[in-house]
């Protein structure tokens, strides 16, 4: 079975180590704004919601791409072919989770599971993100998160709204 990164907000402490290390690995410096994973922090309520690419079974980003630059590989990971990307940004608008963005040189960037060894997961001490095949519980949690589709706004706004929705479900 495919391995995926699963997030459990109940365990997330908001430390952002995943975000820091992701950006260092992908961008060559510590630059959270350019990371492929994000943490929506709600300190007043003591809650944090990881935003990560769900590697959707039927990815909207893939469907939206006019250049067929986005593909899904045999491991279920959705990848951007930088050489084919024309920088139109249609994928960014299409993603309901804010998890694909325009990077440097106007090429779309997203989480690629670091080729099967995600750096972020190794940094998560509380186990709020795990890279596993996933049991029933984790898939249920994942399904609940994927239901929170945010169709408008910038990627950051979509992520924030996903966090707001999940916080409301968890804590009221």
């Amino acid at each position, binding site marked *: 079975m495919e391995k995926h990164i699963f997030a459990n907000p109940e365990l997330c402490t908001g*430390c952002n180590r995943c975000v820091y290390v992701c950006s260092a690995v992908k961008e*060559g410096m*510590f630059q959270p704004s350019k990371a492929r994973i994000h943490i929506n922090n709600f300190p007043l309520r003591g809650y944090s919601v990881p935003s990560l690419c769900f590697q959707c079974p039927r990815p909207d980003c893939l469907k939206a791409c006019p250049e067929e630059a986005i593909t899904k590989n045999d491991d279920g990971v959705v990848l951007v072919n930088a050489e084919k990307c024309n920088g139109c940004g249609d994928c960014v608008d299409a993603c309901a989770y804010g998890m694909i963005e325009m990077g440097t040189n106007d090429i779309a960037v997203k989480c690629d599971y670091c080729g099967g060894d995600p750096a972020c997961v190794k940094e998560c001490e509380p186990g709020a993100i795990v890279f596993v095949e996933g049991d029933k519980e984790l898939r249920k949690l994942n399904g609940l998160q994927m239901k929170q589709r945010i169709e408008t706004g910038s990627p*950051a706004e979509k992520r924030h709204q996903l966090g707001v929705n999940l916080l409301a479900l968890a804590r009221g």
Partner: protein
Amino acid sequence: MNLYAGKILVVDLSTRQISVEPLREDWLKEYWGCWGLAVRYYWDLVDPKVDPLSPDNPVVIMTGPLGGTSAPMTARFNLVSKSPHTGTIFSSNTGGAFGPELKFAGYDGIVIKGAAKELTYLKIVDDQVSLESAQSLAGKGIFETEELLQPDAGTPEAKVLAIGPAGENMISHACIGTEAYRQMGRGGGGAIMGGKKLKAIVVRGTGGIKVADVPAFIETVNRHKKEDLFTEANLWAKTDGTAVLVDAISDMGGHPTRNFTYGVNEKKEGINSDAIKAAKLGDRACSTCPLACGKFTHINGAEMEGPEYETLCLGGSNCEINDLEQIIRFNRLCDDLGLDTISCGNIIGLAMDMTEKGRHDFNLKFGEPVEYLKAVTEIATLSTQRGKDLALGAKKLAAKYDSRDLTSESKGLEFPAYEPRSNYGMGLAYATSERGGCHMRAFPMFSETPFDLDVMAQDVVNGQNFATIKWSMGFCDFWGSISSPIIADILSVATGETVTVEQLEHVGEKIWNILRLFNLRAGLTRADDYLPAKQMKQQLQKGEHAGRVFAPEDFDKCLSLYYQKRGWDENGVPNSEKLAQLGLDQF
């Protein structure tokens, strides 16, 4: 350059001029960042005799070299200025994520001068920096201020540093808050911002921080994390958080209870770490911290991150409030209104004692939560005479009602949660801290010889020197086992240049001596390095150290030993050889 953003933001609130200066790279190897570098900047900007609440008293906010990287627990950043509460130079630091965000915006620090004409906030979005009206935020709490300002910076990911009504009203023990429950707590930073009519700073940064070799840096950091951070000395922070100290310090007989009358709280079961665990919803961390010492609790609709040990003691045991729900309510009020919980709890405990002893009736009683909670709001808003009195701070409050025999403070800063009569080293640490009664400069609480004057004097010197290094790097206190070799190793890999232990160890003593020189020029003398009569003459009651005092002659001897070990004369003035040795001749 590696590790640093390379720029300092300079904001003059009087002229509304904003400028960007290159970071003084020539200072970095001597002062590094955070506390040390802020002190160096501050020294050049001010006359030590300045009135702390005047426009002439600047504020320096500084991040550390490792802030913004994945080096664990390095997100802390410092504020340095002259304290309106103690009249000394002081530093306050906090964690959260504001410091790294400032670096990502492109600034290692901010120098704030002058004073605005009306309530203002500073908005930083990368290289777009502006002063904006905060008139609509007047009187608002820190929680609401943060939530209102984040969208204003264009993203919910913006970070805010703000004051509440207590800061606006220039209460001299007002704090500065960020991410709701994190504070620059001690010494009155909130009052200084209030005096400058600076309600908040909001920052969003999208840039990055470089290290010489990313894979080597991550490997080095993770090795020290595994081999040193995740060991018994530090794991209490992950499993229990600071509440673990309620039982530990009380069992040692050093847990201030009933206005520093008892050394143990016999009813601590309601407020110890088991009580916190029973109320816990989850663990919370500052940026880059894998330990997550913050415990988010919820009881009967009252929720917050914490309370921490100091608040459980000063707002709990010291007021004989042994109901965790009421302490949560006290803590939330302080955090939102912008009051330091240590000072506030200490002062209310004092007022309860004064009331019960008939010195003055504040309608406050030990163990009675209703008026205790009301008093917090009254202090922050100055809405009643009781509030105005308690806003004076313990020292001035006691002086007003002839009750100096009941106070626990030094240089005007109210003592935290470790009883000096149970550990003379803590007494000396309180008396010799640059900002007054504070446990964050030297912490010999767990010494096996707490009454050996010579050992304690040396422990305090060593502790102060190392704390100064640690907080010039931005490391959190709760990486308790961290050492100069680990810091040197991480810095070497990050900068790509060899940093030696000797280089670092010189730094701590040097900065500590600059603090001393400032305070001497501000007019302080040996007489200001004091313990109050309560700790020197009244016997501690209950617990392992019942009957003990820190007798005046012992304290005096201990202080002289400390001065000798520092290379200072009998008046606490650094001698010329010491200054030359530290390269401080020009100071």
